[in-house]
């Protein structure tokens, strides 16, 4: 990642999906990793491709391209590992991206009523206006479910 500093502004990670660029608030990003094997198993949640193993954790891979671009990615180069909040809990999710990412500083303008739920705001960078993504709205999660379907204990360990 390259970095340009701007005092008084917030840090964002710029990611590329196909021909478009999007931004995520930098504090939500854990790392950018090379493609690794996706493990698939049956499920019914749309937009989830499977899981990858990363640092001993099992991380779900959420394909956000179709929602953002209207089509899936034809090529991918990296996974951007981001933190997704589910109420008081948070977990990693992996977002497939097609290009290198860039760390920038910019001032964000909040989203408007007309913006989709996955738009957290907007930033301007090098003459381009870029959507800042709200990952909690963009990626699937249990907080969208009736509570009856959410197990009381979601983290099971073998003590």
């Amino acid at each position, binding site marked *: 990642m390259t970095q340009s500093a701007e005092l008084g502004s917030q840090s964002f990670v710029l990611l590329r999906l196909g021909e478009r660029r999007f931004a995520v608030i930098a*504090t*939500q990003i*854990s790392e950018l990793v090379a493609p690794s094997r996706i*493990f698939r*198993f*049956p*499920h*019914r*949640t749309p937009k*989830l491709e499977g*899981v990858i*193993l990363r640092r*001993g*954790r*099992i*991380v*779900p891979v*959420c394909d956000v391209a179709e929602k953002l671009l209207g089509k899936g990615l034809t090529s991918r180069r990296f996974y951007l590992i981001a*933190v*997704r909040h*589910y109420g008081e*809990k*948070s*977990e*990693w*999710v992996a977002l497939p991206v097609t290009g290198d990412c860039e760390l920038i500083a910019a001032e964000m303008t909040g989203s408007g009523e007309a913006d989709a739920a996955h738009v957290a705001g907007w930033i301007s960078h090098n003459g381009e206006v870029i959507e800042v993504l709200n990952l909690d709205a963009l*990626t*699937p*999660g*249990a*907080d*969208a*479910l009736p509570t009856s*379907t*959410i*197990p009381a*204990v*979601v*983290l*099971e*360990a*073998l*003590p």
Partner: protein
Amino acid sequence: MHVATPPAALHAARTEQIILFRVSGQLFGVSSASVQEVRSVDSLSGAATEINQPTLRKVRHVLRRGDKVLYVINAAVHFGLPASSAGLIFVLRKTRTALLVDGMDKMATMTRLQALPLAYCHEERKWYRGLTALDQNVIPVVNPEGFLTADEFALLDASLPPLETTGETANGGTELPQ
């Protein structure tokens, strides 16, 4: 940035034996403690009664054992996988279900079970106890109680065919120790 600490780091290690089995080429795990018997499909051909509940295509057969009725779940249909040639039935302990699977892969020792990531938010949350990493592979570990809901049991109970004396004399099965 706060991400939950992996549970394995918080607890002393304890292991659990699981049976790895295949359905339409997909590998699953189930706790061996929750499998009462493993039987070949052939050995039960005379013991199973057909049941026809159009809204539950995954249950086509019933096994009667005394007063107990076991609903045979076709795992491929349950998980939405392509139809496959089932070879084994797992009779699940403490449930009224048996599971039709293609075959058993092996027994393995699971040292850590990670909860299904919260991004998975549909029926699969009932299907699986969680995921485990084994031999550089990620295996979903099924929840033996997740194959039928209480409503589905009620529906099936209501559509049971009249009791017949089947006189089950199945051979070729393996009763697993509890």
